[in-house]
C-alpha cells in the first residue's frame, strides 16, 4: 500500500511554460492538492503567493541562473506551511499583507509591481525594523523578514524533494553533482536525473 501512494506522489503532470514560472509551479501544485479546492496553493492565496514570489525574488534574484521565483521557492514555502511550518501561518498571512500595505502607502502599487530598486528599499526598511508602526509592529516585521530570508534560502538551496530548487538549479549553479543513483535510489529516481 505505501508503495502505491509513493508512486502516485512521484508522477507529475507535464510542465507547461506558457504563463511564466510562478504560474507553472502553481498549476502543478493545483493538481497535487486534494479536496477539490480551486486555489492553486495549499495555504497561500494567489495574491499572497504573488507578493511572496516577488519578495523571494529580491532575496535571490535571477541572473544567468533562475532566481527564487523561478526555482519554486513559493511552492517550497507553501508546502511547508502545510507541514512543519504550520506554526508560521499566522505571521505569513500578516506579514505579506503588511508588505503590500507598506508598498501601497509608499508607491501606490502592490509589492509585485515595484521596480527592483523600490522593492529593495522597502525590504531594507523591513529588515531594519523601520516599517511604519501604523502598518505593522516593526519588531514583528523584522522577524518576519528574517523568516522569509531563511525559508527562501531553504527553498532555493535545499533538496528539490521539498518543492523548491526546481531541477536542482542551485546545485547546478554551485557545481554540486545531483544525488547519486545508487542502491535504493534506482527506485526513487529524482525527476531531474
Amino acid at each position, binding site marked *: 500500500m505505501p508503495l502505491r501512494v509513493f508512486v502516485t506522489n512521484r508522477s507529475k503532470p507535464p510542465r507547461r511554460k506558457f504563463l511564466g514560472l510562478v504560474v507553472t509551479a502553481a498549476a502543478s501544485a493545483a493538481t497535487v492538492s486534494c479536496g477539490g479546492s480551486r486555489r492553486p496553493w495549499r495555504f497561500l492565496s494567489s495574491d499572497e503567493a504573488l507578493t511572496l514570489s516577488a519578495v523571494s525574488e529580491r532575496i535571490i*534574484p535571477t541572473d544567468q541562473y533562475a532566481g527564487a521565483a523561478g526555482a519554486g521557492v513559493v511552492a517550497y514555502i507553501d508546502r511547508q506551511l502545510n507541514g512543519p511550518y504550520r506554526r508560521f501561518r499566522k505571521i505569513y498571512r500578516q506579514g505579506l499583507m503588511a508588505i503590500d500595505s507598506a508598498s501601497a502607502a509608499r508607491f501606490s502599487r502592490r509589492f509585485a509591481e515595484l521596480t527592483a530598486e523600490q522593492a529593495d528599499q522597502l525590504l531594507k526598511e523591513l529588515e531594519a525594523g523601520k516599517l511604519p508602526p501604523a502598518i505593522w509592529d516593526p519588531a514583528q516585521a523584522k522577524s518576519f523578514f528574517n523568516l522569509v530570508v531563511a525559508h527562501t534560502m531553504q527553498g532555493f538551496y535545499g533538496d528539490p524533494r521539498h518543492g523548491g530548487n526546481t531541477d536542482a538549479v542551485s546545485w547546478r549553479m554551485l557545481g554540486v553533482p545531483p544525488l547519486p543513483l545508487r542502491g535504493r535510489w534506482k527506485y526513487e529516481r529524482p525527476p531531474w536525473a
Partner: protein
Amino acid sequence: MGLRKVNAVVVGAGAGGGIVGKELAQAGLSVVLLERGKWYSAFDCRKDDLRNQRNSTLGNAFGPDDERDPRVVVDPSGRERIVRGSEGGYQNNAACVGGGTFSYGAMAWRYMEQDFRMRSVYGAVAGSTLEDWPISYDDLEPYYEKAEWEIGVSGDDTGNPFQSPRRKPLPMPPLAPTREHLILKPAALRLGLHPFDIPMLRNSVPYGGREPCMRCRWCVGFACEVDAKCGTHNTVIPKALATRNCELRTGAMAKEILTDERGRVTGVAYFDRDDRLQEQPADLVIVSGGAIESARLLLNSKSRLHPNGLGNRYDLVGRNLQGHTYAGANGLFEEAVYDDLGPGASIAICDYNHGNPGLVGGGLLANEFIRLPYQFVGQAPNHVPRWGKAHKDFMRHAYRRSIAIRGPAQEMPVFDSRVQADPAVKDYWDIPVARLSGGRHPHSIEVGNFLAAKAEAWLKEAGATYTWKSLPGPGLSAGQHQAGTCRMGKDPKISVVDPYCRVHGHDNLYVVDGSVHVTNGGFNPVLTIMAIAYYASAGLLRGWKGGGSS
C-alpha cells in the same frame, strides 16, 4: 506489573547503553534494553539535507519527536521558552537505537592524559568547577582499545606526537585523502604543526561484516546508506541480541526508576510503544540516556527517601552540563578545493589541545565535514549581505573554493549550567521535561577565540586569499557532545557516581554515558563514552554475585 524480573535493565540504547547491554548479556546476565526511539537501518538513509540530525530545518530525522518531547530553555536573562526537538537551543542528540552513533560524523578520539587531570595540570579556575577525574588515561587505555577494535575505527594517528601512549594501532587504515587534506597538510608542516588522519568510527575497508565508506557527501547527521559508519546499532547491540540474553524494547519511554520502602532500586517504570505504563523489575538499573535525559530521569525518580530524586542528596544531579565551544575559520581559495569526497573531515592537529600560553586546555583542529549547500548559506563572512545578488554571487563563487576548519574547545564546567526537571511543563506522557539553564564560562570562549585564530593562520598558510573566523557565543552548549551532569568522583559530596559509574549510596544503580565525564576534553567525546561503558561494565561484572530472588 507482570513483567518477569531480569538481572539488568538498561535505559537508552546509545553509545553507552548499547555497550553495557552487550557486555552484561555476554556475561550471562538477563538484560532488557529500553530505547524510546526506533531501530532505523541503512534503508532509512534519505539524504535529505533539510531534515537530518545536523540540519533539522524541517525536523529531526531520528528523533526526538517535535510534538512529544519538548524542553524548557531558560536564557541568561531568565526568560524561558518551550522548544521543540528540531529547534535551536534544544541541545538535541538523536533518540533512536544507536543514539548519536547512528547518524554521527564518527570522529573517534581518545582524550589525552592531561584531560583526566585538568585541575592538577592547570589549577583552579574562578567560576568553574574544574576537577580531576578519579580515573586516569591509563585506567581507560585498554577499553579505548577495545572500543576501537570491537566497534571499528579507521585512521592513522601515528603522526600525532601529542597523543597519550597506545598499545595497539587502529584496526583500519585511513580513507584516501581529500583535496582539502592535500592542501592543508603541507601548510601545517610548514607551520611546524603535526597533521595526521582523523581516527573515525567508519569502515575504510570491509570490517565487522560491513562495507567500506562509499564517500558520499551526506555523512554527519545522516544514516549511512551502506552501513559503513560504525555505531552501537550495527555492532554491539546485534551481538547482545545474538546472545539471547538481551531483549531490546523500542518505543519505550522511561518514566522513573523504582525503589522499595528502604530506598533500594528495584526496576524501571516506562511507557511502552502503545503508551501503556509498564514496570520492569531488575537487580540492576543502568541509566544511559545521555547527559540531559539521564539527569532528567534521576531527578524525576522521587520517593519518600529520595525527595529530590535519586543520587541527588547534595543537589548535584544535572549540574556542570557542558558540551564543546566550537570555533574556527573559513578560508577562500583561488582554485576549487571541493572534490565531493565524503565525509569531508579528514585531517587534524592536536598541537593546541594543551600547553597554550595563558590558557586552560584547548582543542583539536580539523577540517570540517562537507557543507551541504543550505548549510553554507549562513557561513558567509560579515561583509557579505545576507540576501540579494551579492549573497548569490558569494555562494556561487565561494562554495567550491572554501575550506572550513573547526575545533571543539574544552569547556570549563559551570556549576549553574544545569538540567532540572521542569516544575510545570510535561511531555506527551505527562513526565516533567528537562529544563536547561546557564551558559558558557568566559574562559571557554577565550579558548575558542584562540583556536579560531590558529585555524585562520593555518588557512592563510595554505594559500587562502581571504579568511574569516567563526567565533563562539556565550550561550549554553551541550548538544551531541553533552556531558557532565552526573560527574564521577570518590567524594559523594562533590560527585554523583563513583569511579565505576555506580551512583553513590546505591549498590545497584549506575549511570553510564557522557553524564559521568568530569571534564569533556578538547575532543569529540564518543570514544571516551564507549571506553567508559566497557570499563564500567567490567567493574560491574567483577562485583556481580548473581541476581536476588524476584
